[in-house]
């Protein structure tokens, strides 16, 4: 597994790019509520995803849930915009459904994304959206959902960095969307944390 500063990870098996928590349509949801978020945010997210695909030479993309943000954000313009982007990447994309993906079918069809249900087991590795208690003892699991971030203290002001949080049994990916705030993480014994700072991944 290679951790990429684009907030993605590359799995050797089938050169699979793992991403989680894209929250597409969050801007549109916020616009609907009268919050002026610049629209460039999701353009940047898609560009970064494209960047990660190119850099890693991925042959497949596996999304670990929360592709969408909320039904209110699934506007036609958004769906069409993503579809146009999708058309430029002729590689298979799959989605393990997350808690936000309530009405994902329509979007998944438009974007040619295969739905894998809530859990996907492959080569002894479990892919799921949220790290829940039923992961089991025998497999290593990769998930998203938590939007892990570490807080840096000791400086003038606390600073939050998105990070990968790898516990001995579960690996949690950072949220791909930059329009998400990270939740601080609780580090257990044996955990390793890799933060994304200034364009590189560093162990923290």
């Amino acid at each position, binding site marked *: *597994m*290679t*951790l990429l500063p684009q907030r993605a990870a590359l799995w050797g098996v089938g050169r699979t790019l793992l991403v989680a928590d894209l929250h597409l349509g*969050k*801007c*549109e949801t*916020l*616009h*609907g*509520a*009268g*919050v*002026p*978020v*610049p*629209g*460039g*945010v999701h353009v*940047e997210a898609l560009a970064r995803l494209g960047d990660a695909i190119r850099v890693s030479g991925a042959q497949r993309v596996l999304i670990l849930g929360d592709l969408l943000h909320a039904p209110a954000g699934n506007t036609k313009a958004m769906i069409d915009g993503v579809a146009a982007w999708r058309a430029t990447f002729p590689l298979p994309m799959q989605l393990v459904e997350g808690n936000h993906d309530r009405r994902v079918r329509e979007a998944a069809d438009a974007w040619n994304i295969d739905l894998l249900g809530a859990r996907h087991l492959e080569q*002894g*590795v479990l892919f799921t959206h949220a790290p*829940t*208690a*039923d*992961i089991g003892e025998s*497999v*290593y699991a990769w*998930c998203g959902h938590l939007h892990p971030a*570490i*807080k*840096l*203290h*000791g*400086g*003038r*002001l606390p*600073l939050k*960095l998105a990070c990968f949080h*790898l*516990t*001995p*049994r*579960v690996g949690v990916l950072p949220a791909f969307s*930059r329009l998400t*705030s990270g*939740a*601080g*993480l*609780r*580090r*257990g*014994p*044996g*955990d*390793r944390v*890799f933060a994304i700072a*200034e364009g590189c991944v*560093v*162990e*923290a």
Partner: protein
Amino acid sequence: MGRDPLQAIRTWFASRKWQAWEFQTQTWEAYRAGRSGLVQVATGAGKTYAAYLGPLAELIDEAASPGGLSPGLKVIYVTPLRAVSRDIELALREPVLELGVSITVESRTGDTASSVRARQRERLPHVLVTTPESLTLLLTRADAATQLGGVRCVILDEWHELLASKRGSQTELAMARVRRFSPQCRTWALSATLPNAQAAAMAAVGVGGDTALESKATKRGGAAQRSQEPVIIRADMERPVIIDSILPQGSTRLPLAGHLGLVMAGEVAAALDPAVPTLIFTNTRSQAERWFHALLAIKPEWAEIAALHHGSIDRDERERVEAGLKSGAIRIVVATSSLDLGVDFAPVERVLQVGSPKGIARLVQRAGRSSHRPRTPCRISCVPTHALELIEIVAARDALARGDVEPREPIPCPLDVLTQHMVTCALGGGFVPDELFAEVRRAWSFRELSRADFDWCLAQVRHGGEALKAYPDYRRVEEENGRMVVKSSRIALIHKFNVGTITGDTTVEIRYLGGRSLGRIEETFVAGLNEGQRFVFAGKVLRFVMMQDLVAYVKPGYGQAHLTPIWGGTRLPISESLSRAIRQTLEDLSRGRADCPELVHALPVAEIQARESVIPGADDVLIEITRTREGTHAFVFPFEGRLVHGGLAAVVALRLTRVHKATFSIAANDYGFEIVSADDLPFEDLLTPGLFSKAKLAEDAAESSGTSLLAKLQFREVARVSGLVIQSLPGRARSGKQLQANAALMYDVLSEFDPGNLLIEQARREVMDKHFEQSRLGRTCDRLSGGRLRIVVTARPTPLSFPLLIERQAGRLSSETILDRVAKMRDSWVSGVVKATRTQEASSPWKAASDSGSRPKPPVWDDALPVPKIEVEPAQKPRRRRPPRPTIPRW
């Protein structure tokens, strides 16, 4: 009519055997003459009746006339304190009841019962007591123009409190709107003594607008008065303020640094008389908690008569304490600024201030809480928490004797408040941009607003600004027949729920398991608690049970708890007036002045300072250079407050790196700042007056570390006020989850994708003004680059510099990069020194794992599991040695 319209009022005064003060009759006369103005008088002198009885006389007169008093709002009384609106309502109703006239007096705040609100939706009372926020909410009503059309007078209470804040800007805009709806409206502001009374008065009454509006107003007879200068009425009622101190006795010695001052708890307990109602003011909430605890530990028998009061404690509990003080059941209250204002605590006889007074006006305000009677002296006893504070106390006393009190300035043109106001106006019947522009410019703070900035804000609410033009879903304000209105009922609702400029951190309610609420506390503190952990809150030892839906459940805890929450917020710096006075007092001290007990007490420390270094004169800037194992330290003492020093230290460090390649760490406190380098640097030659030059100061401050981070922090307020971040949503808190975006995130997103955003600019400007006190920073630079730098090389840290050594250990400032900080965090994690970052239990995968019954395994990267091999770019940073903790030098 012929008779004196004030007759009824005079009769009422006489019936209560009161004699009207001269300032009261002056105000009544001025009101009757159609004037607006400002009444400056100490608290408790009867300024409420000064402002209120004029308009009331008018109403009584009208009620007695054949037509009777028409229904509708006539007088608005605005108070910044929601908690006292009830008391004010009662005070305003008293003359009405006793004179038996049919004038309705009601209050409307966030606490008003829904039945009363419903009635007020139908019909507003003649006299309404309200807060700035509720006043703004009145303006969001579609029929605002008719509802407010009959207002004759608006009274702005505690105007000095509102004036220099965004709540003040909000009130100014609301007043501009009220005056437009009701051109004959007069404004009377009530304030404590301010040196800049003229500006304060102008902010209250507004400035003359363009002539088109004037002529429209003339037919109602209001314009003539409004273009007049405001009347400023000063009462010759000043109460002498006595500042004394409680000094250490016997073997107690004040420490050289620190701000809690618990070493003095014994002296304070001995000095208190449980029969005398006493307020003990502290500077922070956690200090209040600690002091309350310490006092009860010394005098357990005071448990019944002592109480704690601060802003995070549950309102019911605070009201209970206030009522207890009034009735005499509670006689010792440890409080923060939550008791600075408001309710008249007539029985309070003694006031203590623990720790630095920070400012003269603040000390006077607090002193004014004692024996709330006109013309009696008020007394405040200061309790120093460290040795140098003795000098601060003397300085405050001297400054007060000279009448050197801090001015309060309105914030110039806060665009976030304007953005919010636009939506308010769009809701309240809509607006025409040209008219609104003219109207807004009649508010003092916005008198220099440019049309370009106005249009930018308008674009912001119409289509989200340049960056959003392409997005059709975004609509806050829409155009309809030439008027800007809000069409979406959802947006209307969100706006009404978020009116105001008070921003808070996410707080969590603290509640007994199955019992009552104790108050609110910052979420970050609760997030760090483990089950069963004990902490002190609201003066009680509590045991943490669990956290659910933003409620932290606790049980009573017993014994000792070593954890006291530290609430967010920057520590207040000492004011400019006070710092000037401190420099003077130091000079006096160096000349051997010892005419008061504080200075006698400070003598030993002063002697050490004089021996090891020098005591700086009022116009000197002392720079001490000390070489220790850690490296070379330069301690610079401008005595200008912690914020200015923080900014200046960052700027000086940046400028130093330009002439000498090195890494610097910096620290700042209220007296000075420290720049330290691990190398042996010739600071003697490097620290020249040119280094403090004002040229390019703003640029350098912006470039130096921290400004952008601070701006991000400041943006929280801007984003919330301007509606970029929705703080509260109608209905249940959870339903709004998908709309959450925090301000730090918005700051990043906007600076990247909408670089010209004026709200970001505003946040940066506010940081420069507020955090670096830019103008003060500039004045300080003038003084430093023109003044006498006294460079002294000392053998070891001096009493002045030692607190700075401690401060840096607390890690307040550093110039490290993010990668440095990540590396440092890793080191501390590896060595197990620092606790890991903690969060809510629920968001940890480990918690989920342990829920299933299997406890988390010890850290074994078991080969049996398909544990991934991790490749990342290695970060190669040398590990730093932890510097030794400073010990007090042997002088």
